[in-house]
């Protein structure tokens, strides 16, 4: 169940006034969501914990700038988390390209872990979840983009598929999610 946006909105307004109790409640409400996403994207617990802390530091600093017109509190917080996680994932790739010895097979394997973790995640997806209801080809591209931080071009290269095909799968997957969301709301 998604968190109640009305309560979260009130909490963010209180956090903007530097109310630490409200901040504590906001953390309790969203920390597991953020941490779950961080673990899925970054894999290592220590990285995910660092990210969680960074996200809530940003929430504390920027609560005053939050506007409900720009999205729900959950979307705002998750967007902060995803942006930061993607920055980290991309910096790992840049670092690996810059100075990691590419002939180290263990390392090469770890650099390629986005795809393997996409497969690993399949086992963790609840059967009644939104992802489980997507066709495999659509689910794969959405996972690589959303959790792996890959761009459309990188996904096309990784899957050796034309860019147009990847775009179509992504858009079809998103449309399907919209339909599911509509069904849930009805």
């Amino acid at each position, binding site marked *: 169940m998604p968190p109640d946006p009305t309560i979260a909105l009130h909490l963010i307004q209180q956090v903007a006034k530097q109310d630490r109790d409200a901040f504590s409640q906001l953390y309790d409400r969203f920390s597991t969501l953020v941490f779950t996403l961080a673990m*899925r994207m970054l894999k290592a617990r220590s990285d995910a914990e660092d990210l969680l*802390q960074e996200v809530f530091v940003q929430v504390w*600093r920027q609560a005053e700038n939050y506007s409900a017109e720009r999205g729900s509190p959950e979307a705002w917080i*998750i967007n902060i988390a995803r*942006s930061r996680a993607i920055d980290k994932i991309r910096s790992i790739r840049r*670092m690996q390209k810059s100075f990691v010895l590419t002939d180290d097979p263990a390392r090469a394997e770890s650099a390629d872990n986005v795809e393997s973790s996409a497969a690993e995640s399949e086992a963790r997806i609840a059967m009644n979840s*939104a992802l489980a209801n997507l066709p495999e080809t659509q689910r794969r591209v*959405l996972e690589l983009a959303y959790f792996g931080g890959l761009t459309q071009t990188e996904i096309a290269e990784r899957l050796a598929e034309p860019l147009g095909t990847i775009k179509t799968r992504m858009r079809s997957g998103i449309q399907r999610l919209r339909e599911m969301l509509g069904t849930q709301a009805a």
Partner: protein
Amino acid sequence: MRSEHERWREQGEIYALGALDGQELKEFEAHLTSGCAICEAYVREMRETLLLLHRSITPTTPSPSVKTRLFNDIASEKVVPLAAKPRSTWRRWQVITGTLAAGLVGAVLAGTLITKRYEPRHTVYTSVINLLRDPATRDFPLYGTGPTPKAVGRFLWNESGEGHIFVSNLPAAPEGKMYAVWTIAQASAPRYVGTIQTDRTGQGGLHINMPRTDQPVETFAVTLEPVGTTAAPTGPMVLVSKPA
């Protein structure tokens, strides 16, 4: 034939997913910046839809220590909200009175401080010696790279989370920039561990105390970053523990 907005909508879906890149990304961002309320609303709606994705995965609970660390930082006012409230008149009087009192106390303490002038340096030396005494401490040479090929350094590191970095031949960071120090465990994101400053001779040092992590650090790096960059390295690498 597709309408102009149909094309933007298609790009908006991929943009919300974070997967738009290249020229398409530049064009779409420029379109958003131009103030298109339709696309802005559409991206917002897509982001709400995509929340279904992370709700699909099995929840993982963070350690309670993260909340403790977060609230300690806030309590010690390391983290200050961006828009600070204006100070009231009463608050200004408090500040003035406090400043005068601090001045008096400062004068009394001045003599004591002079005698203790070298204490911080002494503490650092002691910490470094203790690090070196521990057989688990590893010693990594650092090599200059990118814009500073002549820079050199050493990184003492203990997996307890304590370390010390020494650098030489590293010119002072330009205005608005800083040298950020990172540790990198295998397949993990670089972790910011502090900022190092160098003196006129290009020498500098930094003692590091971080919480222990679950993966051993493999690589150490220093990058030149805009001041305040701590989430992830974005600038050129100036020192690294593996030769290029």
